[in-house]
């Protein structure tokens, strides 16, 4: 097994599996965030946040998610270093003019670093305040006819998105993510070997659509919160 994980394809398989796993996480994240656009003073969003904070499955998934990020980043760094070494010390004086190669595919590590930088800001703004410093105030909402005391996550989100610089950072982060996924999604499936002449085109179209659903979705939520949900 150690032999397998030290092979190039073995390491790439880890990149692929963790990457695709992180995409499924993004789907859940975006669908919950969409509740921020329900005009009910954040009741639905708070109910969803309460469910996520108390659900045992989510408690198990949280460390697995963190592990997914760590493996993805660690192997990305390792592979990038090896690739630079394989390229050699000498660069081409005439550069590289190969047409039809997407910018994203050649700069996945830089795009990944952009997403990581965003992630640090994002975690400091929300996860730390939810879980570590516990800066949330309780609020009473109605969940399926039962009045429940939940933490007012919506208030923090709403207040954070009231700052213009935050919205700009989120839009930039979302675009970086979309770009990363526009290559990453199909590339992950190619690495698993789940591709042929027909599916190659299909995966890259599906990948591009998924990428921009996330890119535009997360951006729009931040922008609309800033423009229309501030009291």
């Amino acid at each position, binding site marked *: 097994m150690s032999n397998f994980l030290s092979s*190039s394809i073995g390491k790439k398989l880890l990149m692929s599996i963790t990457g695709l796993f992180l995409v499924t996480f993004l789907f859940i994240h975006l669908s919950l965030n969409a509740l921020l656009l329900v005009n009910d003073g954040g009741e639905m969003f708070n109910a969803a946040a309460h469910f996520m904070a108390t659900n045992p499955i989510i408690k198990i998934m949280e460390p697995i998610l963190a592990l997914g990020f760590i493996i993805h980043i660690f192997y990305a760094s390792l592979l990038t270093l090896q690739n630079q070494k394989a*390229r050699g010390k000498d660069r081409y004086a005439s550069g590289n*003019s190969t047409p039809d190669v997407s910018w994203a*595919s050649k700069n996945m590590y830089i795009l990944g670093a952009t997403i990581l930088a965003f992630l640090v800001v994002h975690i400091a703004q929300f996860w730390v305040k939810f879980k570590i410093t516990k800066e949330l105030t309780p609020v009473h909402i109605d969940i399926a006819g039962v009045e429940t005391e939940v933490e007012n996550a919506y208030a923090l989100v709403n207040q954070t998105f009231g700052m213009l610089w935050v919205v700009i950072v989120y839009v930039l982060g979302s675009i970086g993510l979309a770009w990363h996924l526009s290559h990453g999604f199909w590339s992950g499936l190619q690495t698993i*070997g789940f591709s*042929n002449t027909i599916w190659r085109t299909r995966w890259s179209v599906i990948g591009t659509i998924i990428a921009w659903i996330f890119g535009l979705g997360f951006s729009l939520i931040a922008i609309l919160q800033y423009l229309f949900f501030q009291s």
Partner: protein
Amino acid sequence: MEKNINLKLKVWRQDGPKAKGRFETYEVKNISTDSSFLEMMDVLNEQLIQEGKEPVAFDHDCREGICGMCSMYINGHPHGPDEDITTCQLHMRKFKDGETVTIEPWRSAAFPVIKDLMVNRNAFDEIIAAGGYVSVSTGGVPDANSIPIPKEAADEAMDAASCIGCGACVAACKNGSAMLFVSAKVSQLALLPQGKVERARRAKAMVAKMDELGFGNCTNTGACEVECPKGVSITNIARLNREYLMAKFKD
């Protein structure tokens, strides 16, 4: 229509594998646009010999696009700016009069420079020796069509087998990866009944050798396929991944 052009050539000169290389600029005059790039290099070398200088060393053999010997990284492309051709098939009509042409060797840690524009591509031979063959005893020549092979498999195997092992894929790859070459060599055998017998051993041995020789890790940019003189498709890389992963999971 034929015409003659003058060019300025910026050529990589390196005395030996350990020597420090540098660019030198030469001028060639009255080059026919009907001539090939290698013929132009011959003209340059004639000129250098007449001047009492050392001619430029470059690889070439069949000069008809099937041996894979000619290399050269020309103006940002392996095999120059035309598509689906080797350097010997590159016509001088692709260049403008007075243009400066930069000519470099393949650059990759696994392909060290021997001299000037020649690089050592033994690494590819070592990968083939690791498993790129069929070792079953085939006996005498069987009757044609005695082993049924689906047309699609035959076509795909033939397309993969068109790889001439020139190394343009490695030269074009930002990661110095040999995956297109290895995948073509694995595919041309894995698709056919005679090659299927040893498919698992072959995929494992060839990938292990490729990693050991210091080729990079494929990130699916697709540059190799664009620059490949034979248009070998990166769907072969997906097949190699499948072959390798299935072989490893069976263990």
